[in-house]
């Protein structure tokens, strides 16, 4: 491919992914309110536009127009840095996710993944581990006890669940044999979804994804009943909007990652039998991925409006005493299964 075409194509792809991420996150706020309402026998927002479809726009206008408050005693730069970091790290993760197979136009390959790092999984993981800084810095710079407690809770929660998450990914990497997201997605063609190979790892990963995105029942950093608003108590206007919005972007990316890691990514069984055009398959793959993502976003919300929040000691017990031992057990079982030939040989000798 010509270098200039390559650059232009990548720029368009980056913009498209960025725009879609923001769009999905925007409409996730609407979906959250609608789903919450429906699960509680209500109708939800229905005033702005037909069925309230313009509600996110109204919310955005409200957020922008509200008065901006920066507590006079807080550290101004860090106070602004907090929500910016939260937003930045949330947007960075979409880079390595394979949104679909490659398109072929005039014999040229157009990959639907922005970049295929050979350490894609680790990149994702490092960006996720950066996510906590936004919350911590924001919570500390607010100079408010509730915010500080929220920030501290966020940091200890995210570190605890990162361990279990990493261990569950290790088992996945053992079976797939690669750290590249593209490879992991491509391996799951047809019915070879990783969830069937790694059911326990998948469960642990999903639970940890809930904890990493600070979604209920793991939303202790912003626990209203104890901490007023948690780390964003002192925030107002669009800075608060950034914190809230980052959560929805994280949820979208988490859903994409769960789909790609465990639920076949852009693959759908049986489709290849009827459709043979590779470009058509690639476009359908994007659609399938977004169907899966939508389901997981719905699942996130469904859980939020069903389960009550954990108590803090329960959260730590679950993380350290249950999920981490389980994920280590998962690694051991996976390893034993992969080396079963050698093990059988050892005992039959």
């Amino acid at each position, binding site marked *: 491919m010509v270098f200039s075409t390559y650059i232009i194509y990548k720029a368009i792809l980056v913009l498209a992914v960025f725009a879609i991420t923001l769009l999905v996150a925007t409409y996730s706020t609407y979906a959250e309110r609608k789903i919450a309402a429906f699960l509680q026998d209500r109708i939800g927002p229905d005033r702005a536009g037909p069925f309230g479809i313009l509600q996110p726009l109204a919310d955005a206008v409200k957020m922008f127009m509200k008065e901006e408050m920066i507590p006079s005693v807080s550290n101004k730069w860090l106070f602004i840095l907090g929500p910016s970091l939260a937003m930045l790290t949330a947007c960075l993760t979409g880079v390595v996710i394979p949104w679909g197979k490659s398109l072929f136009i005039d014999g040229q390959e157009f990959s639907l993944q922005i970049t295929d790092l*050979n350490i894609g999984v*680790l990149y994702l993981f490092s960006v996720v581990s950066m996510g*906590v800084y936004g919350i911590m*810095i924001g919570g500390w710079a607010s100079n408010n006890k509730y915010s500080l407690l929220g920030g501290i809770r966020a940091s200890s929660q995210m*570190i605890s669940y990162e361990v279990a998450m990493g261990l569950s990914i290790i088992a996945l990497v053992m079976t797939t044999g690669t750290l590249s997201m593209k490879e992991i997605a491509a391996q799951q063609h047809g019915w070879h979804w990783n969830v069937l190979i790694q059911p326990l790892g998948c469960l642990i990963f999903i639970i940890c994804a809930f904890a990493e995105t600070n979604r209920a029942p793991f939303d202790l950093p912003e626990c209203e009943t104890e901490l007023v608003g948690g780390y964003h108590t002192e925030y107002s206007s669009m800075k608060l909007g950034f914190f809230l919005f980052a959560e929805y972007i994280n949820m979208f990316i988490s859903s994409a990652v769960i789909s790609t890691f465990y639920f076949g990514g852009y693959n759908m069984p049986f489709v290849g039998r009827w459709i043979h055009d590779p470009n058509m398959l690639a476009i359908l793959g994007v659609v399938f991925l977004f169907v899966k993502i939508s389901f997981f976003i719905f699942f996130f919300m469904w859980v939020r409006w069903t389960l009550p929040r954990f108590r803090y000691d329960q959260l730590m017990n679950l993380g350290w005493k249950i999920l981490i031992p389980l994920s280590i057990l998962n690694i051991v079982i996976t390893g034993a299964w992969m080396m079963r030939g050698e093990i059988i040989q050892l005992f039959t000798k």
Partner: protein
Amino acid sequence: MITQYVFYFLSFLAIMFGLMVVLSKNPIHSVLYLVLTFFAIAGHYVLLNAQFLAAVHIIVYAGAIMVLFLFVIMLLNLNKETEPHKNVWLKLSAAVASGLLLVVLVGSLKNAEMIAATNTFDPNVGLIENLGKTLFKEFLLPFEVASLLLLGAMVGAVLLGKKSIK
């Protein structure tokens, strides 16, 4: 050529942020500058095509250890009012000791000669596959011993964390 400029830029950033770590009055700022230093160093790893090291560096140092540092400093809530008053003699002796260290470092580096690299640099050595093979074949024993060391440290920390053991 571009690599060289990027190298100088990253080195500048690393040194500047390193200095800011020392010079910042507020410990929280120091920690944040240290995180930025780690990012600059991770950039160096990427320049050497050691992507795995770069990612792990960020995950472990910036993403976990520095978060814990920040966590502890936030919990202690250090500020100017609670800063312990240090003895003048203590400050003076610290200055003398660090000055001596500087003299030793300069003295040892003055007579050092540039050692030519014995083997040519393989740009693929930092990729995860090669790194894994090297770690688990040539350096298996040190690798496992290091993990034992970490386990020992962890057990020790748990032991210290328990209030009393009867």
